């Protein structure tokens, strides 16, 4: 885990003010709010927000929209991975039935 100082040192364009605003906004969620400690994921997330604002030119109002969508995508991807891992352990004939049902459902949705 990283302290606030260590995190700031590793993300070039990040300032303590910006970081604290992000934590307050809930964009970054350190393990303990009283004595914040940050994980590598928090670091990468902070770098991403810097990237979005500084490099890509998104405004401060855009960032929560983007984070929300990104978080939803990762939520979906995690569920999907869990589902696929669970399906992987089933016998082949059962997987076949599921594959068929999914295809049928998608086809139904298209009509």
């Amino acid at each position: 885990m990283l302290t606030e100082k260590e995190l700031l040192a590793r993300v070039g364009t990040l300032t303590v003010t910006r970081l604290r605003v992000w934590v307050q906004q809930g964009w970054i969620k350190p393990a303990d709010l009283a004595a914040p400690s940050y994980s590598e994921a928090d670091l990468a997330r902070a770098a991403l927000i810097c990237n979005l604002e500084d490099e890509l030119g998104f405004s401060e109002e855009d960032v929560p929209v983007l984070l929300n969508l990104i978080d939803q995508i990762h939520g979906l991807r995690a569920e999907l991975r869990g589902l696929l891992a669970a399906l992987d352990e089933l016998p082949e004939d059962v997987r076949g039935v599921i594959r068929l049902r999914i295809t049928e459902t998608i086809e139904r949705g298209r009509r």
Partner: protein
Amino acid sequence: MAEDLYSVLGVAKTASAADITKAYRKLAKKLHPDLNPGDKTAEERFKKIAAAYGIIGDEDKRKRYDAGEIDASGQETPQQRYYREYAGGEDGARYRSARGYEDIGEFSDLFGDLFGRGGAGRGGGARFSMRGQDAQYRLEVEFLDAVNGTKTRITLPDGETLDVTIPPGVSDGQVLRLKGKGMKGMGEGGPGDALVEIGVRPHPVFKREGNDIVVELPITLDEAVLGGKVEVPTISGRVSATVPQGANTGQILRLKGRGIKTRSGTGDQLVKLSVMMPEKIDDDLKSFAETWRQGHAYDPRRKLKEQA
């Protein structure tokens, strides 16, 4: 020869700094790895445009690049660890959102069924369905219960009970299939069946041969000689049977319709006669036999001698 950095960003050599930034941002928004978490090629393409922008997006470096002082590959941006590399892991879990599929009934039902969450009350959709497995049991029944049919109850290991109707004439080793009494299915898949293998205990008197019942019936010497009525046990109680005059050991009386009643037909009872001598041969019998054989000699072993 490295690629021309201006063409990487799709701008003219004469483009203004603002145009270069604009072009870079347009491409970067499309290709940023964290905005394309599932696209592996996005990262490579993003690296290229980021490296290009790192040089021609910087006024000083752009001048040196234009002057040929640094080449396109001269600037290596430090390796960036993208958020997407963490988002899928344990550490990124608290940022993940379930709102991406809350409204999609089919999906949350699917996930709900598989992961034991929510999803109740939503109709239709691609539910996961699988028929339950068949459960196998073995049931020992008495000979007469198997022959005449009966109802019995099995207590299962989980404490539940299973009522089993034994059809008349069930045979040893026969398997009864009780529809829908097996393991529970998933989703719309119905339960499996219970398969009950029947074991029939042997009976000291009755033997089964197909639908016939075979009974060995001991008779006395005088019954054998004179014939007469005798009482015979059958699977449905005692009946009276007539032993013919001169009945012999091994002779079979057929009691029509006294066998096993099944859907495929009704068998008979076969009564195998067995002449029994009295336990004690008294003087009367002895003297009778001595007198009798004087004029009535017969040879029951004649055939035996001919054949062996």
